[in-house]
């Protein structure tokens, strides 16, 4: 825009800075750590500073109010309408922020053994990742969204390389880097078309324009569809959906355990949230506008359906034949991505017509539950492994029940949760997703494909029990292969135990988390609200 009168710069600043104070705090802590790196900071100091940074970010997030955000429509003529600000603190924003902050704290503990080579840099990069994740949840502009996604991936390249001194570690860092660059380019190509077709980088404006520019038969213009598919491809890489999943097994296998634990979770959250924001599934303002890539007006949901089916089946099939534990977790993560795509699909059904669930709430819950279990598994691996006793194949877990009872008990909880046994968070998450898919009425264009998808998912969940159960059996029903060595790093054990407790607590009493997620992704209201009064 070329303004007639130059705006007051501080107006723009005021419009957004209040919404990102905790992220600013995180980045400030990261800068402090970078400074510390100049004077050779030790591990303990870095650890404490990182933790303090997270804690102060949490404090800021808790005590500084986000301000009252006028609903769309109240301030139509106002150029600083929050719906058109680069930051949108509504919707799932604060849920994602808290998720990022909790994850930040958890990963500070989890990185204890991995950060040895360069502790300040390691923790600083990690804090930037957390800030990026939080910003993904509140970006309301293509530019901000792209940059926050990069804030998640660029430090990750560094993190993957820093602790990895072995050849395979380098290899995994290289693979992730190259493929991530490729997927970024694809994503950007999609962004450029989305911007081009609508003339704005603002997500809200993009969605509003796309829902209106449909041709006579209600389908999207081709340019927008191409943009949508490219975005799906670029973000499919982050969530590790087939066929964009290729990097996951290799990187998980050879990457440093703590970082892989992060890689298994953070990009997934970022990817799903970005996808939801771009497709208008997750903002307090957008549901009223309709869906740019909904079931009725594009083939994208059908593509996602296919991707979901392939992803969950592929993940499970390859996980069954794995011997390497971390590789197994990679394929398991791919399968779980498939389950989560169900929720995104449900959300892309026409809102309001008998859909009792927004679908994204189920995804958010599942992300939280999946985070708990998968981070927990990697915490256990990181705790148990050491140079004398590397944990590579599943058989390396043999006898864990006797040598490391606490870690084994936590691991058992995670595996049960990954299987989806009742009274664990994993069960509630799966249940939530499946019921949401089942509830979708069959009179949409997709007919009863949601129900078919659920059947496929339930069968897949049953298959997945095979490999989790094998790990479980090896842990408890076999004698240890190597003499017991004491667990390395108490922080990881603490993480594992806390995650296990949370898994059980959220499994037995999921209501608080469910309330949060359904608040973060409310059921869309069907009636469109006129949000712009045309200028007379």
């Amino acid at each position: 825009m070329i303004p007639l009168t130059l705006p007051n710069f501080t107006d723009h600043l005021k419009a957004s800075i209040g919404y990102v104070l905790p992220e600013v705090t995180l980045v400030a802590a990261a800068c402090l750590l970078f400074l510390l790196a100049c004077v050779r900071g030790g591990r303990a100091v870095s650890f404490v500073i990182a933790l303090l940074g997270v804690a102060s970010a949490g404090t800021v997030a808790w005590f500084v109010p986000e301000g009252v955000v006028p609903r769309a429509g109240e301030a139509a003529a106002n150029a600083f309408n929050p719906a058109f600000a680069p930051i949108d603190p509504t919707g799932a924003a604060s849920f994602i922020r808290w998720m990022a902050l909790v994850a930040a704290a958890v990963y500070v503990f989890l990185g204890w053994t991995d950060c040895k080579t360069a502790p300040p840099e390691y923790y600083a990069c990690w804090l930037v990742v957390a800030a990026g994740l939080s910003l993904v949840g509140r970006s309301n502009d293509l530019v901000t969204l792209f940059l926050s996604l990069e804030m998640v991936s660029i430090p990750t390249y560094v993190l993957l390389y820093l602790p990895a001194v072995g050849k395979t570690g380098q290899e995994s860092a290289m693979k992730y880097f190259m493929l991530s660059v490729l997927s970024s380019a694809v994503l950007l190509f999609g962004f450029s078309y989305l911007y081009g077709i609508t003339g704005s980088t603002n997500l809200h404006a993009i969605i509003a324009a796309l829902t209106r520019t449909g041709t006579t038969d209600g389908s999207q213009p081709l340019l927008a569809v191409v943009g949508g598919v490219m975005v799906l491809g670029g973000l499919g890489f982050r969530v590790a959906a087939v066929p964009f999943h290729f990097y996951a097994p290799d990187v998980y296998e050879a990457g440093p355990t703590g970082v892989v634990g992060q890689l298994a979770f953070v990009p997934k959250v970022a990817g799903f949230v970005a996808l939801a924001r771009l497709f208008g599934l997750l903002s307090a303002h957008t549901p009223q506008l309709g869906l740019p890539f909904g079931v009725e007006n594009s083939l994208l949901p059908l593509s996602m359906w296919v991707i979901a089916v392939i992803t969950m089946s592929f993940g499970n099939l390859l996980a069954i034949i794995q011997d390497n534990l971390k590789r197994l977790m990679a394929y398991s993560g791919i399968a779980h991505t498939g389950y989560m795509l169900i929720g995104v699909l449900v959300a892309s059904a026409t809102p309001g017509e008998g859909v009792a669930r927004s679908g994204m709430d189920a995804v958010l819950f599942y992300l939280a539950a999946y985070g708990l279990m998968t981070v927990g598994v990697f915490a256990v691996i990181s705790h148990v492994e050491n140079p004398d006793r590397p944990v590579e194949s599943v058989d390396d877990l043999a006898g864990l029940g006797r040598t490391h009872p606490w870690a084994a008990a936590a691991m058992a909880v995670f595996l049960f949760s990954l299987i989806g046994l009742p009274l664990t968070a994993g069960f509630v998450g799966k249940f939530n997703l499946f019921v949401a898919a089942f509830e979708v009425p069959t009179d949409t264009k997709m007919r009863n494909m949601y129900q078919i998808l659920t059947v496929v998912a339930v069968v897949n969940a049953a298959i997945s029990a095979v490999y989790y159960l094998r790990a479980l059996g090896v842990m408890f029903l076999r004698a240890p292969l190597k003499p017991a060595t004491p667990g390395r790093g108490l922080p990881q054990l603490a993480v594992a135990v806390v995650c296990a407790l949370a898994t059980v607590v959220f499994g037995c009493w999921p209501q608080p988390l469910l309330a949060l997620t359904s608040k973060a992704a409310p059921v869309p209201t069907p009636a469109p609200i006129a949000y712009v009064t045309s200028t007379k």
Partner: protein
Amino acid sequence: MITLWHFLGVGATLFALGLVGFLTRRNLITMFLCAELMLQGVVINLLAFGRFHGTLSGQAMGLFVITVAACEAGLAMALFLMLYRRGKTLDSGDWQQVRETGVPAATDAVPLPLPPADDEPKLPVPGLRPEQVAAPFPESSRA
């Protein structure tokens, strides 16, 4: 005055070329340059759309794309340097140690052509006495 579509065509072509290069060329540096080529295509798209809409958002976004590309380039340099130090090669195909068990490593069937015959004169290896050449002076005459 402006036809958007020509520029979009050029942008798409650059992007596709970069894609082909990324998929086929095995030198890591060339691969990375091809990725940058893709980003150039994206930037052309952005600027063309920006010009078309008469807004500056496109240019701003293009600027950020270039910034991020620069970040990636910096990291790529460091990463490739370390990879080269370890493996003495920049061939992306040499980094395939991590893969599914039981899947054979990809090898190249066709041998490389022999290096062309070298016509340039060879300098003797320093520090060794050239064998064929007889010493013009006796040992003692050297200072």
